[in-house]
């Protein structure tokens, strides 16, 4: 892993300044079934291709933001701050 990520605050920095936070998932509410909770807690999509991910700029500005990345090549396509109206609720 030696690719670079364009932090919305700090600009392009090597990946080891960041921390990976998984793909955004919809957190089930109280009415969800056990299966839905298990899906949320334990299953990950493992996409071979482009996906949106949380990344955290832990060595610098401490911003959590969203990255569009191709998992096959580690090419970073876009980065942006979280915008609630665009994304299904994160976390």
């Amino acid at each position: 892993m030696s690719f670079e990520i364009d932090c919305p605050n700090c600009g392009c920095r090597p990946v080891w300044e960041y921390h990976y936070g998984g793909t955004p998932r919809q957190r089930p509410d109280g009415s969800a079934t056990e299966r839905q909770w298990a899906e949320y807690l334990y299953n990950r999509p493992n996409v071979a291709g482009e996906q949106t991910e949380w990344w955290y700029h832990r060595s610098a500005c401490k911003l959590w933001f969203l990255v569009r990345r191709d998992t096959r090549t580690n090419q970073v396509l876009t980065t942006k701050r979280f915008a609630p109206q665009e994304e299904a609720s994160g976390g």
Partner: protein
Amino acid sequence: MAEDHGSIEFEFDGHRVRAESGQTVAGALHAAGEHIISRSFKYHRPRGLLCMSGRCPNCICTVDGTPNVRICTQAAKPGMVVKSQNAWPSVKFDLLRIFDKLHRFMPVGFYYKRMYKPRWMWPVWEKIIRRIAGLGTINREHGAEGVYDKQNLFTDVAVIGGGLAGLNAALAAADAGVTVTLIDEQPALGGHLRHDPELVEPISDLIRRVSEHPAITVISSAGVFGCYEGNYLGIQQGQRMIRLRAAQVIVATGCWERPLIFENNDLPGVMLASGVQRLLHLDHCQFPGEAVVVTDNAQGYRVAKQLKAAGTRVSAIIDVRDNPSETADGIRTFRGHTIISASGSRHVNGAVIAPLAGHPRQSISCRWIVQAVGFTPANSLLYQNGCKLRYDESLDQAAVIQHAPAMHSAGTVNGLHDPRDAASDGQRAGLAAAEALCSPCLSVSNPSVETALETQSHRGETAPMCHYVSPSDAKKKFVCLCEDVTEKDICDAIDEGYSNIETLKRYSTVSMGPCQGKMCQSASIAICARHNGQSIAETGVTTARPPEQPLPLGVLAGRTLHFSLIRRTPMHAWHEQAGAKMGDAGNWKRPQVYSSVPQEYEAVRQRAGLIDVSTLGKIELRGADVVQFLEFIYPNRFANLKLGRVRYGVICDDAGILLDDGTIARLGDDRFFLTTTTGNADAIDSWFRWWLAARPEWDVRMTNVSASYAAMNLAGPRSREVLKKLTDADLSSDAMPYLAASECTIAGVSVIVLRIGFVGELGYEIHVPSQFGLHVWEAILEAGREFSIAPFGLEAQRVLRLEKKHLLPGIDTDALSNPLEADLPWIVKLDKADFIGKESLARAQQRGDRNKLIGFRLSEPVVPDLASLVLCDGKLGGRITSCGYSPAVGGTIGLAWVPANLAGNGQTIQIQVNGRTIPAVVQDEPFYDPSGAKLKS
């Protein structure tokens, strides 16, 4: 030839060898008539110089104690001690050559077939094999001289390879206004033109312009061993590893000449044409006697001419082609012929040649067999970074069909062997790289490889012969010189079912030796294709991975001292001066013990003690929605936390797993001060920010004040009296009861005081602005002197908290621990609205406890190791997570995870200690002050 005053002497296998200054070790040995340099891996056959470019395994020796040095690229130095490897008793007379006669007992993969029955014999066989096969031995006494170091660099354009294409690419890019770093593995620029001077006009002018260009940095004698994603290059330069980040990369690595596979093709005296040229032109050596050149291209004719000029009698050119365009004046030329075998036992003394059909054969006497039969492109860096390549029959090599982003290739690696093409291809690549930087919105892929290839075909070059293997059924036709793999071995392996190129490689070990396929890749693929009845394109290639060339581990290990972070608290110097034994806690340095654990323990329990807890994570939260946030983050309640009060809390994830614990103090209506454990400070910081990032509508402002505050814990029955001397604040238990949080002034400094007691005594956790940390620390110790206060370290604190049964997250808990089972069921408020982990904890509660964290008293005065087993009916049931001698109990106490049915108060559990089983009694209550009277006093 050099004059006498320019010569030096070194030692080879015990005798002295003279070298011209500037000559390589191999060149000097060649000039001295030493032609057996090494013995082969498996059969111990004599091997001599072949490639002279640091690629093949033949010249690997131990130099000044360092094993596996390629002496063909190692400059000779006075007094150097060079020793041959893998031979007994000597490289000239190696008794182990007996294996050459036994080859039919050692077919490909023989160790898989013969040496595993009976099973216990394998370790014995392994020892024997390792002794008699293989490479040099590491001399443990001999460390490397100097230091292994690391360097980080960045550049706009990195050009790999200082040949004609690379030089042109570097110049074109630099002239276009970007910075260029040119990495070249040779000591001087020029690539193969250095040793093939007739090929083009002298390029000294080009080299001068590159060297003098202000925007070009040249890194010489440096090999790029890996091209990682993001165009991050790993470069070895001697004992230094350079990590170079490049916006654009141009691969102009050229190609390696490949050997022809014929019988006895590994005899000393059989050389690659480029190896001969290097010896002639760089090492100023000669080739006395007769030579035969086998070729399918113009280079064969050039080398024949150069040999002739150097005094060698070239008795024949064996040209694979029927109608070559080249002619050689005065040299007998056999067209449509190839070489069948080399004869001789320790050195070539003749060659057998025949038409391509294989018959009729004829012998030619000669001392040298020179091979010029084509090239393998040095394209592994392209593969590594994700370029797509496909075998192109018209070039007889793999060619790029799609470049990885921000990556280019130029020159012979693209199949452009004509110097004019290579030069213009370099310029094209240099410009393309510069353009991509100046207007990054343009497409970064470059389609012009095809154009370059078209140039070549327009010139009407004849199609290459694709001649890899000479026609004969002989057994000793070596494909892989590193591992002694023959053509027959490869065919046998395919017949046994290893027909895929990747499995073939792993089973036969072809291309897995020190050359990493540089000599054998092309031929092994060609043989695999032929034997499978496939085309070369269908056969494919094995995956290219870093490192591209063998790398000393020291280069990777290097020193990284200046990158490791050490954190010290504001009181660090005081601790050191007080003689504290310091220990690591993450990046922090923390006092473990000052005097002794019993003394420090006694001070805290009887009088007063002071511990530095500055390493705690500290977070300040402000805003209208902080209460809502805390209610969501923590399983316990915070809406009812009153102003000026502090509460213990644990943090769980949504699976209900306990992540961390700490305290939450309310310092204002919408202002809270939180602490986390030392080890989880960063993780909890990130955890909070993650949940907040997705909830921008919440009015929660978070500041990490971990480094802003020093912190210390004053604990013990006399601590109130100590603190009273330093503050006007009312410290009485009415004004400041247990779990009070207040802001007041101590020793003239505004501080936050939390009345909490991790160690189970009356105690004050005092958070002080960092710059006053030492001042307050010293003031408290001074004020406590009359009470015989003592500083205490982590070790005493461990015992003190264990007596109170306080768990340490990450030590007493792991990734399967929830608070219900970790003896904290009271903290989970399932009647609360949604909080993180609620669903999972509700289900866990429904299910009931499976395991429980319990406290125990051991029946014997021994202290078991951590993680000692708890046995149930003789089987593994649980484990100890903390334990130690408790002065309060007068025996060993601890915490352990046990099955829930053994967790009842007073039950007996069995703990395994040094092979014995010792009973222990489960205890619900804390071991010290169970009512908490001292804590609340």
